[in-house]
């Protein structure tokens, strides 16, 4: 049977058309299965019913018609749908990667200079005539500074100071910062792994 299948050659234009549409059948089946998987839950259906937007028989017939039309489109234009499908998957992966990225204010272009932690601490003491700030590096932010330094475990980790001018675009969402921001960043191979902000709004 396998031999006869392998030795089969299209003879009429209908054979050619069926051969062309074969991948489209698989793609259509996959898209239909996905649509079935993403169908509204019973809760959503109940909510629609309460809102007076219950799906009627006419709606179901219309939906069936739309699915049939879409299936024909996929069968005929499957190469286009395949390109769109691959692009969509790639876009989804890129979106997930972007979501997983940490949201730092600092970016490589705002790094000023590599600095030793001891030197950073020397210039960080806060002067207050009312003595409302502890006499430790970075004042009330001392505990956060300690936590930041304790995470610098790798020998390749470098401490860099940074300055973000007012009006610059910062963070994953490229917000415009309304004041200048200063702080320190943990950098490895030019990549920012953590930040400690000492001044911001």
């Amino acid at each position, binding site marked *: 049977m396998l031999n006869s299948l392998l030795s089969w050659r299209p003879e009429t234009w209908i054979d050619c058309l069926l051969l062309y549409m074969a991948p489209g059948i698989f793609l259509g089946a996959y898209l239909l299965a996905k649509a079935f998987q993403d169908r509204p839950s019973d809760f959503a259906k109940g909510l629609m019913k309460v809102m007076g937007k219950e799906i009627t028989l006419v709606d179901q017939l219309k939906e069936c018609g739309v699915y049939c039309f879409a299936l024909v489109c996929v069968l005929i234009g499957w190469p286009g749908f395949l390109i769109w499908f691959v692009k969509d998957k790639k876009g989804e992966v890129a979106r997930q990667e972007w979501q997983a990225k940490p949201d730092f204010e600092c970016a490589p272009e705002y790094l000023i200079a590599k600095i030793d932690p001891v030197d950073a601490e020397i210039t960080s003491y806060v002067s207050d005539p*009312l003595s*409302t700030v502890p006499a430790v590096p970075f*004042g*009330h932010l001392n505990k956060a500074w300690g936590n930041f330094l304790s995470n610098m475990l790798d020998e390749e980790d470098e401490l860099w100071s940074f300055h973000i001018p007012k009006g610059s675009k910062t963070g994953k969402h490229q917000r415009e910062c309304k*004041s*200048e921001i200063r702080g320190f960043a943990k950098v490895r191979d030019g990549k920012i792994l953590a930040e*400690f*902000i000492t001044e*911001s*709004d």
Partner: protein
Amino acid sequence: MTAQVSERLIYGGKETPLFSNPLSLYLKQTGISFVSPHTANWRGYVGTWEIIETAGVERLYLVQLSAHKTYEEIICLSDVFPGYEKIFAHWFNGELRCPQGELLNYVHGGYASTYEYDLLIEFKQGVLVKRTARHNEPPPKKDEKDYPPFLRRGNA
């Protein structure tokens, strides 16, 4: 979103609403967070700030704090900063916005409402560097056609 309860600022002996959150950087850096008691206070606390002048220099201090550790339990400044009655906001760079005068346009979200004037006070490392006042105009009235169709009144 709901309009948020403002911080308070004491300046020149007068108390005024403050539409800025100077404590947010401190809380972010130290990993402290509070519980929101209601939708008008998502940040879970209200701080009272004071600008105190010493030897000709005006500095920003946190003088009171009412923060929700849980929905029921409210903690104060000395619980967050043990041993201190006031706190110099040395981390604060930027502008404080104090709305003044008549409410021109209420916006049901954040600090977005417009008042007649805004007193803008700029700080660098918690030290006052500049003060300005801004006169606000009432925003132009919107017609039904200025809204997208699904937001227009009378639509089913």
